[in-house]
């Protein structure tokens, strides 16, 4: 085998290396960067949307995309707050159920009607956005329940709950992906859908399950966000699908399907959080962050494409 083991290792861990570099550079500039408070800052920045990253990873391994996650997140937040009047838990459960329902709808349309996930989730995204504006009357609605904000704003051992939820989920879903039948099936279907069907894997179930999972994650994120800000609004979640997809791709999960992992996507999300935080500390312009994020995405894509090309003729 011609592979250079050292080069391979570096290629595999390139995101981790970039992260370490940035952390090193910034720590030299100010030790505040690796202080506990700042680490919590960074994690808090990425935790809520990071939960959605987990589900999106499963989808991208399956060669699918879900553009509706932002609207789902916004809508479940709206439900959580809107239905608070019937009790805090009613609101929360509705938000979560909504997430799963949207996921199921997406999965159904994609598998049964055989439509591309991009087009379908574009449609559901627009629709859900409409529902959000309908329920909020295009305004921001405030939460009325006293205990609700506590969910996202309490800390356990000085760590805010959303971060704990995020980390725990990352671990759980990485284990599921790597060590269970379902996870193995995800890789198989993403790698070769025809062969998988041939060997008896229930391909449609796998795909629908991944969509439901992602929808559910978006629901959780929506509830947490609503709890954290104690408001619900249609303006939330507009950037979410782009951010989440960027994180997954940045982490090295390829759009060609069949490979990747939650831990890689986590690294991608972490990189985004670290970059944002670094730029705040360095007092660079907010808006440049967007530019840098977009440029890095394009750069990663180009590198990905060039290496695929080279592999073809080896």
């Amino acid at each position, binding site marked *: *085998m011609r592979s250079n083991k050292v080069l391979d290792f570096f290629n595999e861990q390139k995101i981790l290396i970039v992260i370490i570099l940035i952390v090193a550079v910034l720590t030299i500039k100010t030790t505040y960067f690796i202080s506990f408070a700042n680490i919590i800052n960074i994690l808090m920045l990425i935790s809520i949307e990071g939960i959605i990253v987990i589900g999106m990873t499963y989808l991208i391994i399956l060669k699918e995309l879900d553009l509706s996650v932002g609207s789902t997140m916004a809508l479940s937040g709206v439900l959580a707050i809107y239905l608070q009047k019937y009790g805090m838990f009613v609101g929360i459960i509705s938000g979560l159920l909504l997430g799963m329902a949207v996921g199921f709808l997406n999965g159904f349309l994609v598998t049964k009607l055989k439509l591309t996930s991009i087009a379908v989730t574009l449609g559901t995204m627009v629709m859900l956005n409409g529902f959000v504006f309908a329920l909020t009357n295009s305004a921001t609605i405030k939460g009325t329940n006293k205990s609700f904000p506590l969910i996202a704003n309490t800390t356990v051992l000085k760590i805010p709950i959303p971060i704990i939820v995020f980390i725990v989920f990352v671990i759980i879903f990485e284990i599921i992906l790597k*060590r*269970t*039948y379902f996870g193995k099936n995800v890789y198989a279907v*993403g*790698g*070769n859908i025809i062969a998988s069907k041939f060997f008896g*894997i229930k391909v449609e179930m796998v795909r629908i399950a991944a969509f439901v999972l992602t929808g559910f994650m978006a629901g959780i994120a929506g509830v947490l966000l609503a709890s954290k800000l104690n408001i619900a609004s249609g303006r939330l979640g507009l950037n979410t699908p782009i951010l989440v997809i960027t994180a997954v791709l940045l982490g090295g999960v390829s759009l060609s399907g069949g490979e990747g992992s939650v831990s890689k996507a986590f690294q991608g999300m972490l990189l985004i959080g670290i970059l944002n935080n670094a730029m705040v500390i360095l007092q660079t312009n907010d808006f440049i962050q967007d530019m840098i994020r977009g440029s890095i995405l394009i750069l990663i894509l180009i590198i990905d494409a060039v290496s695929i090309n080279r592999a073809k*003729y080896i």
Partner: protein
Amino acid sequence: MEEKELNNNQYDNKLLKVEKIVKIFPGTVALDEIDFDLNKGEVHAIVGENGAGKSTLMKILSGAYTKNSGSIYIDGIEVEINNVLNSSNLGISMIYQELENIPKITVSENIFVGKLPGTRFMGFVNFRKLYSETKKLLDEFDLNIEPNMKVNRLTIAQQQFVEIIKAINARNSKIIIMDEPTSSLTKDETEKLFSIIRGLKTKGISVIYISHRLDEVTGISDRISVFRDGKNVGTLYKENFDAQKIISLMIGHTLEETNKAKILRKKLVFEVKNLNIKNRIENFNIKLYEGEILGIAGLMGSGKDELVKSLFGLWPAASKELFFNERKITVRTPRDAVNLGIVYLPEERKIQSLFLTLSVKYNISPIWLFNICRKFFINDLKENELSKQFIKKLSVKTPSIYQQIVSLSGGNQQKVIFSRLIAVNPKLMILNDPTRGVDVGSKEEIHNLIRKMALEGTSFIILSSEIPEISKIADRVIVLSKGEICGEFIDEKVTTKDILICATRV
């Protein structure tokens, strides 16, 4: 008395029996009441020219095609094979050239796909068991493959071995069909494959082995059957293997009526020097003259496909020197080639040539539009005229030039593609399997067209796996085997026999 008992015993051992199968495609009879049988634990090879029916019968057995008539018996019981799943359940596996592995997961996950061993905890995979079971299987066949390695990192040979193991493990197959399994293997890897096959035999698993490589086939098989024109023309037992006999059975009595005029090789039009393609072609050199038709013959894995693709800029070459009219040229992309007057006819017209949703007219004009009539605004009248002209010239059967091309027959579609290439008055035409999937009538027309154009000065490089076609139409034939020219036939009456002997040499 004894004979009858013998017959009964033979029948009892027949794992598979195929009787009088007929398979018809529009325009051809692929299988003409063909018979075939297979014993338990036997390696039965099938040889024959392209179009003889080998692949067709295998596709019927593996469920990809359905037969028109005839019967199939497995273990003495008649069965119907309707689809791929059905065939798999009956214990038949086909190892395809386009491998069915799932590339980005590990060997063990592939071998046990759909059947991963579980743990006490519901849903979790028992990795230790998976590893040990896989290792056990691999060791049985003496394969030194690491179970945790991702399949896309294995060599082609290793991937193939994994596929075979997958077939007997994940699918419990009793019959394994291998179609040209050694086309990408080295000598050592072929040896390894043979030891695996011998291992299969001891387990009572049978192998149907399809190949052109007579020396290999005689080495590993218990029986060899020869197919020709959709019939089984003879089965030889191990003791009676004889290469000459096999070849003459393959060819039958096809007469070569080529009365080829010797062409005047005056003007050197195209020259290739020092062509090297990684793992495919080594040090290839050739000269091509004006009006000459060069045929390139070779079996799968000979590299002829990649060779012509690299001439057209569709496949990267490690080194390549091209000369057109004695001037050095660079061809890195198809655009370069087309600009120089070189055109290419791809082998898969549905995927690589046809604009299926568009009309005949749109399918004839593109190269002409972009390379000859390079105007910004399309001259509709001229385009219509051009299309009508070629419809007539090549007798394309279509109600009008506005007809959607998808509704034309294969032969007529191919003629449309031909028109597309001819419309730009090319100096060199590279044709990859030009009459594939084309009816007999159109085939003849295309051959005549080629000959006519050659007389008028166009040079041709033609690839075909149909040996009679090449020997009929080409002025000169080179035979490729494993990346090198192993024979050249100039102006002679080339017989199929000659080509076959050369190409089956290892």
